[in-house]
């Protein structure tokens, strides 16, 4: 199982035939294992890692620190449930430390993100404060380094 996950995490487009070849297992076995991983939602979906800057698209990310007063008996989950449903919310984490939720908000412009925070996030019941930080440059995202690097040369023949 784990070998399949490692391989797909690296390249989600590998076919079951390619996986079978690389992992040295029968294709049928791989196909069944992948189907099970998908059914169990261990593999949630396959998607591309896109450099939106390069694509020329306008994308702005805001990291919003949110402090909230948890609701009696329901902790942070119910307010988190309300926040995560907004399509503008790219990621949402419960944090330890000086604030409670980290909300990553995605928009076309800074103004759009700022409005979302001001109009949707800040006024929510139980939200005590927000602090908005805008991303200026994405150097590394989900394990991918986004800046160009020079290729390292090796001698063409070595013992």
């Amino acid at each position, binding site marked *: 199982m784990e070998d399949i996950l490692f391989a797909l995490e690296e390249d989600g487009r590998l076919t079951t035939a390619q996986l079978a070849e690389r*992992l040295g297992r029968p294709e049928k076995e791989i196909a069944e294992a992948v189907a099970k991983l998908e059914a169990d939602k261990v593999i949630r979906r396959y998607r591309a890692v896109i450099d939106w800057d390069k694509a020329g698209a306008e994308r702005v990310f805001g990291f919003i620190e949110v402090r909230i007063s948890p609701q009696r008996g329901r902790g942070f989950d119910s307010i988190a449930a309300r926040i995560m449903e907004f399509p503008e919310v790219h990621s949402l984490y419960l944090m330890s430390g000086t604030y409670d939720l980290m909300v990553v908000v995605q928009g076309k412009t800074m103004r759009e993100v700022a409005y979302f925070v001001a109009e949707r996030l800040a006024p929510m019941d139980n939200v005590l404060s927000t602090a908005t930080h805008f991303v200026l440059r994405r150097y590394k995202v989900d394990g991918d380094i986004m800046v160009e690097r020079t290729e390292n040369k090796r001698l063409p*023949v070595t013992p």
Partner: protein
Amino acid sequence: MTTSQSRVARRVAGLAPSGIRKFFELVERMPDAISLAIGEPDFTTPWRGRESAIYSLEKGHTHYTPNRGTQELREAVASYLERRFGISYHPDREVLITVGAAEAIDLALRAILDPGDAVLIPQPCFVSYPPCTVLAGGVPVPVPTRVENDFRVQAADLEAARADRPRALLMCYPNNPTGAVMGREDLESVVRWAAEKDLVLIADEIYAELHYDGGHVSAAAIPGARDRTILIGGFSKAWAMTGWRLGFAAGPPDLIEAMAKVHAYTVMCAPTMAQEAALDVLTGCDDEVAAMRREYNQRRRIIVKRLRDMGLDCFEPRGAFYAFPSIAGTGLSSEEFAERLLREEKVAVVPGAAFGACGEGFVRCSYATSIAALEEGMARMARFVGRVGG
């Protein structure tokens, strides 16, 4: 006036030029060739190691270290060998940090050989073993290994070599160029034979971490071996540190002491920043090493399958990062095969004969290269083999 020829020592003039050298020049003139002829990782050294070398320079650690290497690194190497292979060495008396495994090989031979002593060398083997033996005053005695035995050296092969005044056995598993590995029983019989002949065993285990079949057994871990074995390892392969020039030797105190003496008079010590980097990779990069091993293993399966699909017999390599297919069916010599493959399809492989006479009929294909390049290289090679007839 003397010619430059006569100024060169006979011993050096007499060394055959490496079979790899000539090939290098051909490939160099062909920048768009796909090279499957590279004996070093395509990965870069794990960042942890690079970062600690930068830090070491920032702190101004630009001086010599003790001859045998820093105390910390010797201790780390000793505990690594214990942790991974179950062999214990005393970091002060039994470990030496060297300028690559390459230097450790040279030191081992110089430390133990008297003029005319024979060194048994199972082949196909790393290209520097015979010349280093000659330079140390010894006589290399090739011991052919056979594909029928999965290129594992057998006691019978050693016996059949009938060496005069044998002094040492120099072997490498996982093997460059075949990818062969030795199991515990194979090693036991070789160690028994070496003990009967009272030989020093020089075990070049630089590819120990790149074993795809359950795990490496060190020759030094075989009962009765430790006190006659010089175990050689290095950072070049598993930690992708070829350019740092760092390796190590571990063995009984008298042999390590002799090696350290030569080392102290010749290079003083291994590079300081490299030693600091190595300390960090040795203790903190198991996950990176595992990820590289996983990747090599996938490439290994692909290349072996492609080679077999194009009609070549290919023994299953279980270690290092080389496949060693037989090209005998093409009727070409390994050199002709490699040269024509390069000219006609722009793919570089190394002729098997470069690794000893018994490597004739084979070529070495390195899979220390991206899967995309491997696939393209294999497609071109299949076209070539189809043309010349497998």
